[in-house]
Every structure is written in structure tokens, then in C-alpha cells.
């Protein structure tokens, strides 16, 4: 266990020390000025809100899409060819997804060429900003294309394991209509069974690096990009502020993990 835990705590203590000026090249003693500076600038909160919003929108759209595909195409996706096709997007890493989005949505990309040929635009500048844009369109599309296949496969598996087909037939036999079966049987079981994994994916998206690095804008940036920009910059006096953000991000992630996975005590119902 030491192999896993010690590096994590060592990294955290180092970042904490750096953020309070105890460690680091130009630091010479305990100070809270880096923390004050980060809170005063509001950059962490802005970046955190921006990252959380992107993660939430991507997750909601992906889960919605995957639920729809599962509900409508579960029988077809059992076939060998389609089943394999659903696995294919899992072979695409974030850096390739980011590269592909640039090829599709940039001002000289695939869709801009088609728009030109259709006479919709006359020069590249007329094509809308779809990558490195303020609404994070490129980032969200990249996340969705990576997540929908994953969640579809996950939901299909839960559908089989939890015998939702049989439960749906039973609900129909008891007089429920298709809408009620979806809302009262299908959705609650699927979402309850995958809730922890969905929460984990929210954390993963919150800390995503490659996709926002390629498709994001200068400001605000997603958390990981901001942390790396601050801790790797040439201005050594600013590095501590990067570690402040790293410490806060680590705390948020750690608290979420504790809330998700902390062994829950069963209520002592027999206690007097």
C-alpha cells in the first residue's frame, strides 16, 4: 500500500509546503501571501467553476445520449459487428480526440471547407470559433464523443446484469405503460447502479488535461491546464501560486473520494 499512498502524500506535502513558502527556490519562510494572492485574483474559483461547468455539461449530454442509445438500440447492439463498433472509440485517447476536433472544427478545418464549397462562407475568418472558443464547444464535443460509447457499453451491461428486460416485462404485465417503465424501472436502476462511476467520471473530467490544452482558450483555463501553466512558468516567484491551486484541487478531489468511498457505518438499530 505504501507504493500507492506514500507518493500521493509526499506530493501533497510538497505542494502544501511550496504554497506556504516553506519550500521552493525563491521562498524563504512561512507565509500566507500566495494563498491571499490566489484568493484575491479569483482565478482558482473562475477556473474551478469553468471546469465544473464543462464537466457537468459533457457528462449530462453524454449520459443522456447513452441512455437513449441503450433504450432504443439495446437489441441491435448485441450483434457482433455493432458491439465491436461501440468499443472502437475507447481506443481514442484524449490527445487524438483533441487533434481530430481541430481537424474538423478549426477555421481551415473539414467543416470550414465544406461551408466554403457550399457558399456559406467566403473566407476562413467567417467560420465561427468552434475550437479554442469561450463556450468550450470543442472541449465539450471531444468529451462527449469519448464518453457516449463508454456509458452506452456500461448501461448495456447493467441492463443485462440487473435483468431490466424481465423487470420491464413484469411492469408491463402489471399495467405500466412504456413511459412509466422507462421512468420507474429503467432509469432508477441504471442510474443507481452506475452513480459512483458517474461521480468518478465527473472528477476525471474536472482534472482533464490533454483535451483542454489543445482545444481550450487562454482564460479561463481548466484546472489541470492552469496548475501546469502556473507551476511550470519562468517567473519563479509565481510558482507558489500554482501550488496553491494544486493543493486546493487535490483537497476537493480527496474530499469527494472520501464522501464516495468512505466505509459507511450501518445504523445500530438494536442499540437501546
Amino acid at each position, binding site marked *: 500500500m505504501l507504493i500507492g499512498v506514500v507518493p500521493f502524500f509526499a506530493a*501533497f506535502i510538497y505542494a502544501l509546503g511550496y504554497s506556504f513558502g516553506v519550500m521552493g527556490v525563491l521562498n524563504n519562510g512561512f507565509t500566507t501571501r500566495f494563498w491571499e494572492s490566489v484568493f484575491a485574483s479569483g482565478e482558482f474559483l473562475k477556473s474551478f467553476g469553468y471546469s465544473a461547468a464543462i464537466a457537468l455539461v459533457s457528462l449530462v449530454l453524454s449520459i443522456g445520449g447513452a441512455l437513449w442509445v441503450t433504450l432504443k438500440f439495446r437489441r441491435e447492439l448485441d450483434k457482433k459487428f455493432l458491439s465491436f463498433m461501440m*468499443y472502437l472509440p475507447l481506443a481514442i*485517447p484524449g490527445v487524438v480526440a483533441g487533434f481530430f476536433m481541430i481537424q474538423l472544427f478549426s477555421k481551415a478545418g473539414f467543416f470550414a471547407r465544406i461551408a466554403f*464549397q457550399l457558399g456559406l462562407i467566403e473566407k476562413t475568418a467567417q467560420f465561427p470559433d468552434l475550437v479554442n472558443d469561450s463556450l468550450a464547444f470543442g472541449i465539450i464535443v471531444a468529451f462527449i464523443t469519448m464518453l457516449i460509447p463508454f456509458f452506452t457499453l456500461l448501461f448495456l451491461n447493467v441492463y443485462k446484469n440487473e435483468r431490466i428486460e424481465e423487470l420491464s416485462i413484469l411492469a408491463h404485465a402489471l399495467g405500466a405503460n412504456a413511459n412509466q417503465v422507462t421512468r420507474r424501472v429503467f432509469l432508477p436502476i441504471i442510474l443507481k447502479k452506475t452513480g459512483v462511476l458517474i461521480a468518478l467520471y465527473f472528477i476525471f473530467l474536472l482534472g482533464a*488535461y*490533454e483535451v483542454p490544452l489543445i482545444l481550450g482558450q487562454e482564460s479561463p483555463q481548466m484546472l*489541470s491546464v492552469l496548475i*501546469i501553466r502556473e507551476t511550470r512558468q519562468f517567473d519563479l516567484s509565481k510558482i507558489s501560486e500554482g501550488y496553491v491551486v494544486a493543493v486546493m484541487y487535490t483537497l476537493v478531489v480527496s474530499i469527494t473520494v472520501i464522501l464516495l468511498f468512505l466505509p459507511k457505518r450501518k445504523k445500530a438499530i438494536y442499540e437501546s
Partner: protein
Amino acid sequence: MKVSWKPYILTLIVLLIGFPFIFMVLLSFSSSWRFPDILPGYFGLKNWVTILGSETGLLQSFIISVVISLSVGMVSTFSGFLISRAVFYHKRRRILTLFAYFPYVLAPVVFGACLSFFFLKIGLFGNVTGVIVAQFLVAFPYALIFFGSFWNKKIKSYEDLVATLGGTPRQTFFKVLLPLAKSMLLICFFQTFLISWFEYGLTSIIGVGKVQTLTIKVFLFIKEANYYYGALSCCLLIFPPVVLLYFNKRYVFKNLV
């Protein structure tokens, strides 16, 4: 007669899934593809032939990536398997498993940035060994969590039975536990291999640009706006996992939920 729309939607889904793969392959064969041309000015093997030369070092990057991913996959899988057993039989196993989640969920690149000081101190900065160790620190917790579902009362009963029948711990491990865990070991190896194969952030921090894996190469080509070589690197990056997924797909999700 009511016409079903499902085949059309399914065809669209298949096309959307296949499109990135086809596009990358076509782009890797292309050159001189200027706006607003729909088709490239050159289409041929020129870019792929370059791989065999040393101009871009792509072949070298491919070999480095394979070596790193194989090492990370094998070491993480076997250590995860062995240590997860000790964790499962520990009286505080739920707390210990909770600890394993911390490095697993933290963004690897942030983990790497905070760890880089220690890697520098022990001479693991900017070399292949350092990258393997760094990626292991992310892949190992995954393996540990993954094998958590393997150890259960049934497995413990098998172990007890072998001990009752006079089997040694060594025999129990090689003749009972390993055969039982064979398919899970394989899945875990594939997964940790892929974690390493797709890793960019941690590798860029600990490798400091000296260890040029394929993901690092893709990013360099994006920065240089050399999209043809970028697409070629992407092909090298995505097709080995496609082959792995083909063999792996029967097992991966069965054990996920």
C-alpha cells in the same frame, strides 16, 4: 406500412464511429492539403515511408511507447494482484482501498507536477525509467482497485481447502489462484497497458521532452502545425489499442459493474 428509422440511425452511428479512423488514415497519406480544397494535393505513401527513416523519429517513439507500456502493464498487474490479496485479507481493507483511490482519481499531470521534485532528487527525471515509475504510480492503484472484486469468500475457501489437503502457499498460488485469476490478469494488463499508452501529461512532466512517446509526438506535431505527421502518429497510437480491444472486448465490461 410503418417504416422503421432505426437502421438509418444505426448506420449514422457506425459512420460517426468509423469517421475519425478513416479520416486519420487518409490525412496520414496526404500532403499539401490547403484551404479550401476538399481533397488533398498529394495522396500517397510519402509520409509513411518517412517513418522508416530517422527524420521524425516516429519509429523510435513507437518502440519507446511499447517498452514503457509493456513494463507498466506487467509490473502494475502483478504487483496489484499480489498486494490486493493482502489488502483484502486485512481487517481495515475498506480504509486501505479508500487510500488507493487518491492517486487514481487525481489528474496524473498534477500528480506529476507535485512529484517532479522527488524524481529530480533521485535521478529519475527526464529518462525512460522515471516515466515508467511515474506511470506505475497511476496504474498500480487502478490494478489494486480492479483486483478488489477478485478476492472474495469463495476464493478464500479454495485457499483453505488446498491448505487442508496439504498444499503449500506456493502451490496454492501457482496451481489455484493464478489459473482462477487468468482472465482478470489479462484484462488488467490490457487496461494498465492502455493507461500507459494513452498517457500524455505525466510523461511530459517527468520525461521533460526527452522521453518522446507517441502522445508527446502527436502534441509536438500539433504545435508545429504538421498535421500530416500528426495524423500518422495518431494512427500508430490508435491502431494497437484497436487490436487489443478486439481480443479484450469479451471480458472488459463484464467485470466493470
